[in-house]
Each structure stands twice: as C-alpha cells, then as structure tokens.
C-alpha cells in the first residue's frame, strides 16, 4: 500500500477531526439511506442495505472507533470495495477527493491503542492534519474483533431477503 508517488485520498470527517481513506479502496459515496438491522451483528454494524440491487453491510465508524454517538442527521456512506463485495462505512461528512504529496504524510505514527494498525499515516494539508485510515483493513478485521461464539454468526449472509429500495 505504500507508494512513493503522491497519495490520492477521499477526505471525510467525524466530529471535528479530518480523516482520509485511499481513493483505491473507495467505490463510491452515498447519502445515508435506510438500513435494515441484522440481529446478532456486532454493535458497530448498523445492518444491511440495498445498493442498486446489491446488498451490502453497513458499519458505523464512530461506534467502531469508540467515538461518542452522532447527533443530527446528514450522514454519508463511503462504499469500500472488498473484492467483488462491498461494505458501507457511515461517516459524518465527505468533503472532497484530494491529493497529498508523499512528503507531507507522516507514516511512522505510534498510536498506543489497538487501532494503531489501521492508521496509514497523518497527512499535512494547509496547516490541517488528516488521519489516513485503512478502512478495508478495519472491515476485514471485523471477524477478529468478534468473540469466538459470535464469529459464525457474523458471516455476511448472502442469501438475505431482498430489501426494498427506499
């Protein structure tokens, strides 16, 4: 994932903090839409939703990152490609697609918590710091976060009933 060239990121926010995700991981951005809860899923999994006929799992990043719950509406869904499947990640706002020079990205960041492995680096742009996250890795590690007795249950159901499009 490390590249010498300039890094293109999709910038988003949670609370006052600016985050970024490498544009390669992102399929698209959507307004928040109706989500059907899935029983037995981890608390940070909102449920499932219908994306142009494809059923995808929706995860709330706030909850996943242990940030207090969102106030008000207007959230966005960043759709992350996971091979042929995709997972929606709920954030506060998506601002823009931006290019940050590699020189402006601090890769060697030590975050003394279990999220450390998901932080790609911290970019500097116009005096603002942007935390670049590897959202694909966060999603793929969902199973690891589950207790053993829950791992089977969190298997993404491929045969879920069709949810009507809002």
């Amino acid at each position, binding site marked *: 994932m490390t590249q010498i060239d300039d890094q*293109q990121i*999709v910038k988003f926010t949670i609370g006052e903090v600016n985050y970024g995700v490498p*544009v*390669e991981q*992102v*399929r*698209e*951005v*959507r*307004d928040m839409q109706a989500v059907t809860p899935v029983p037995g899923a981890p608390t940070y999994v909102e449920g499932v939703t219908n994306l142009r006929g494809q059923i995808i799992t929706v995860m709330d990043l706030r909850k996943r990152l242990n940030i207090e719950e969102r106030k008000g509406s207007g959230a966005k869904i960043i759709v992350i490609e996971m091979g042929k499947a995709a997972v929606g990640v709920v954030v506060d706002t*998506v601002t*823009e*697609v931006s290019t940050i020079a590699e020189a402006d990205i601090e890769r060697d960041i030590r975050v003394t918590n279990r999220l450390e492995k998901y932080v790609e680096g911290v970019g500097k742009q116009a005096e603002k710091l942007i935390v670049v996250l590897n959202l694909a890795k966060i999603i793929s590690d969902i199973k690891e976060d589950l207790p053993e007795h829950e791992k089977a249950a969190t298997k993404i159901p491929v045969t879920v009933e069709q949810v009507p499009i809002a």
Partner: protein
Amino acid sequence: MPKYKMLNTTATRYLQYLQGVQGAVVAINKDFDVTYINEYGAKMLKSTPGKIIRKTKCYDLFKTSNCKTAKCACAIAMKNKKSASSEAMSDNQMNLWMTGTPTYDNEGKISGAIEYVVDITSLKRESEQNKQQMQYLEGVQTPVIAIDEEFNIKYINSFGATILGSTADKLVGKKCHDVFKTGDCKTSKCVCAIAMKSKKPATSETSCNETMQIKCTGSPLFDDKGKIVGAVEYIADITELKGMLESTQGLVEVSTSVANNIEGLSGEVLKTAESIGAMGAQSSQASERLSNTMEQVMAASQNVSDGAQSLSKLAQETAKNVQLLMDKMTNVNTNTVEVNKIVNESNKVAQVASESGKEALKSLGAIKDASNDVGKTIGEVNASVKDVAGLADDISQIAGQINMLALNAAIEAARAGEAGRGFAVVADAVKQLAGQAGTAAKTSVESIDTITKAGERAGSMSKSADQAAIEGNVNVNEAVNGSQQVASSMQKILGVTQNLETAVQESVRYLEEVGGVIEQVASFSEESASASEQTAASIEEQTAATEEVAVAATKVQEEVRKVIELAQKIAAEAKTFRDMWQ
C-alpha cells in the same frame, strides 16, 4: 272889627294860599289883562308879580297855541260861565294844561277868569309812550283781541286782523264768535266767558276753521273800580307745536307755563294799556295801579324769561344727551357691522371646513380601499415567497446531490489513474458549481426569510392603516357634522346680528328726529327768553316813568283841586263881601 276889615283879613289869607300854590295861578279881566299872578307863576315866567300885574295881557305872557283862539280855556269859561280846560303848547315847547274858571262882579256878571296852568310835558310824554306800548301788542305775531261783556270786539291787533283777511277797523264791533268760529265758541269752554266769570285767566285748546290747532287764553278786563268790563283773548297757532310737543312730552309742561306766562303778560299789558287810555292824563289812582300792574307784568315777564331759559337749558341738555346716545348707538352700529362681517367670514370658513371634511372623507375611503388592496397584495406576495422558499430548498437539495455526483466522479477519475485525470478536473468544477448553487440557495432562503418577515410586517401595517383609516373616517365624519352645526349656528347668529343692525339703525334715525325736535324747542325757547327779557326791560323803563307820572299827576291833581276850591271860596267870599256892601 269892622266887617270890611275882617273881609280884608280873610282875603289876604286866601291870597297867601294862592301864593303858596305850586303852579301858575293867573287872574284876568274880560280883556285878558292880568289882574293877579302868584309867585310860582311869575317865577315860571322868570319875572315878578309886580312887573306883570296890570301891565301885560295874559296871552303875551304865556304865548300858548290856544291863546287868542276859541280853545282858550278862560274864554270858554267866561262864555259858558263854568270851568273849562284845554291843553296847549307854550312857545317854549311845554305842554300846558290850562283850566279856566269864570269870576263874577258884584252884579253876577262875568268880570274875568282865574286860570290855573300846569306843565304836563312829562305826563304827555308818558302818554305817548303808552301809545307806543300799545304798538307792542300790534307787533305780537299771533292774534290778540279784547272784547266787552257782550263779546263785541273792542280791539284786535293787526296780526289777528290779517289772519282773518280783514282790518281792525272792520272787525271792531263784531261778535268774536262770528269772526273766529272755534270749537269752543258759544260753549261753556269759551275762555273769555270763563275768565269773565271766574275773574281769572283761562286757557283751552281747540280747532279754528277746522284746519288750525289753536290755544286760546282769556284774561278778564277790569275798569278802574275793579269791575269786569270784558276780556282779552290771546290765540296761539299750535298746529306745529302740537306735533312737536307730542314727541317731547317732558317739555310740554314747561312750554305750557311759558305760553301761560306770555298770555298772562299780554292780558296784563292790554289791561294796563286800556287803563292808561281810560285814565287820561290826570288819573293818579290809575297811574298807581298801572305802576303796580307793571311790576306784576315785569315779574311775570321775568318768570317767562326764567322759564324759557330753563326750557332752553333743559332742551340743550336733552339735545346733548340725545347726541351722546346717538354716538353710542352709532358705535353699537359699527360694532354690529363688524360682528356681521366676522360672522359672515366664520360662516364661509365653516362651510369650507365642511367641504374639506367631505373631501377628507372621500380621501380616507380611498386610503382604506388602497390599504385593503395593499394587504391583499402582501398576502399574495407572502404566499409566492413561501413557494420560492420551497424552491430554494429544492435547489439546495439538488446542489447536495450534484456535489455527491461530483465527489463520486472525482473518485472514479482518481481510480482511473492517468486516464481519469482530465475527468477529475471536470468533476472538481462541477463540485465547485454545486457548492456555489448550494450557497446561493442558502442565501436565497435567508433573503426569503427576511422578505417573509417584512411581508408579515407590511401586512400588519396595512391592517393598522386600514384601522386608522376607519378611525379617521369616524373622526372626519364627526368633524364634518361639527362644522355643519357651526355653519348653521353661524347662519342663526348672522340673522340675529342683522336684525340688531336694522334695529340700531332705526334707533339712530329716531334719535336724529328727536334731536331735531329738541333743537327746534331750544331755539324757540331762546327766542322766547330774549323776547321776554326785552319786554321786561322796556316794562321796567315804563314802570319807572309811570311812577314818576303818578307822583306828578298826584301833585298836580291835588294842586288843581286846591286851586279850584280856593277859587270857588274866593268867589263865594267876594259875593258875601259884595252882598255886605249892598
């Protein structure tokens, strides 16, 4: 004492009497030789008895107009054998009254005469003046008549005769009631009849020949013994005065007293004149009465003068008061005219106000309609603005979606790598456009918000305006009613003040008439006063003269009586003497 001596003594005593007589006593024989003249007579001729007796004829001494004529008193006395008198003028212009008494000789034949000469020059002069006084009556500019007890006219002045179209000569002797034919004639109201009966002046008003208003005053006439012999009537034409007195009733009493005094005066004067005429030259009693009467007349005349002056003063004061009243009335008139003018102007103003009020009402109605329209329009605008607000929301949402599309386009471009780089630029431009659209939509919403609030305010304002217009309408309605009431009140006031003006003008006109009448009264009174004063002055002179005459006449009469007595006694003694010697 021998009888002749006694006789001589007696004769001497009688001669002494004659010497003491204060008049000329002359004895003459049949040839008019002076046989005796007393001291007074000699002194009168500036001579002495010694130079005259038996040395001159009597007609050479006295040289009167009667001497050597048939009028000579001595000649008449000797011819008729009784006393005779005649008036003569001496050569030095003295009026002499000469009385001749015949003397007889022992045989009873006329031997001569005794003549007694009195200077009556002053008496004569007074008599002339009496005649002049009669002329005063002639000068009176109103009829004056004197009648006897049978109503035969004895005297009428020339004014009276002229009024009747005749002359005094023709009228004297006729009955007064045949000449004047007044309403009182031959009735118990006849003032002359009343005066003769009551022995006091009487007055009454009546009409004469049915055209003139006259005032008759009758005064009784007395003879020397105080017996009624007739009456004097004074007739005043009061046709004009009557009208004048009606409007100045307060002055009537004064005027009447003036008239009465004048009438009384005339009566007294005439009576006096008659008395003087009847009395002749020697009536001392009549002279005294004349003198007394003159004093009364003078007093009466003074009363007339005082009365007339009072009347004049009263009339002048009244005229002054009338003038003051007139001035005040004129002021009132001026003020009334001013008030009229002001009221007229106020009336016009009130009418203008009323018209303006009606205009204002119309305007307020228009304002009300307009503000209703404004309110309605604002309501419509508000509705439109709400639609616009909805539109702006839509635009905002669309802008959001475009932004999202642009974001996704940018993501696609980035994933495309080098191939998508050009597209990324477009996506960025689209994203910026969407951002601008969103900002514009947001601004629009804010503006619309402001507009909506402004519209709401405008709506409530137009409602307030509507309310104000309604209130204004009520107020203006009241104002219009008020100004109409004012106008009608002004109209009423105008009527009242116009009446007042007319009344004041009539009052002023009436006062002017009264003033004119009073001026007439005043000038009449002044004339009366000055006439009375003149009369009083002339009467005063008259009285003084008359008194002198009376004194002189008394003296003369006494002397004459004494002389006659003496002459008779002398004649008797002479007869006795003659008888003795026979």
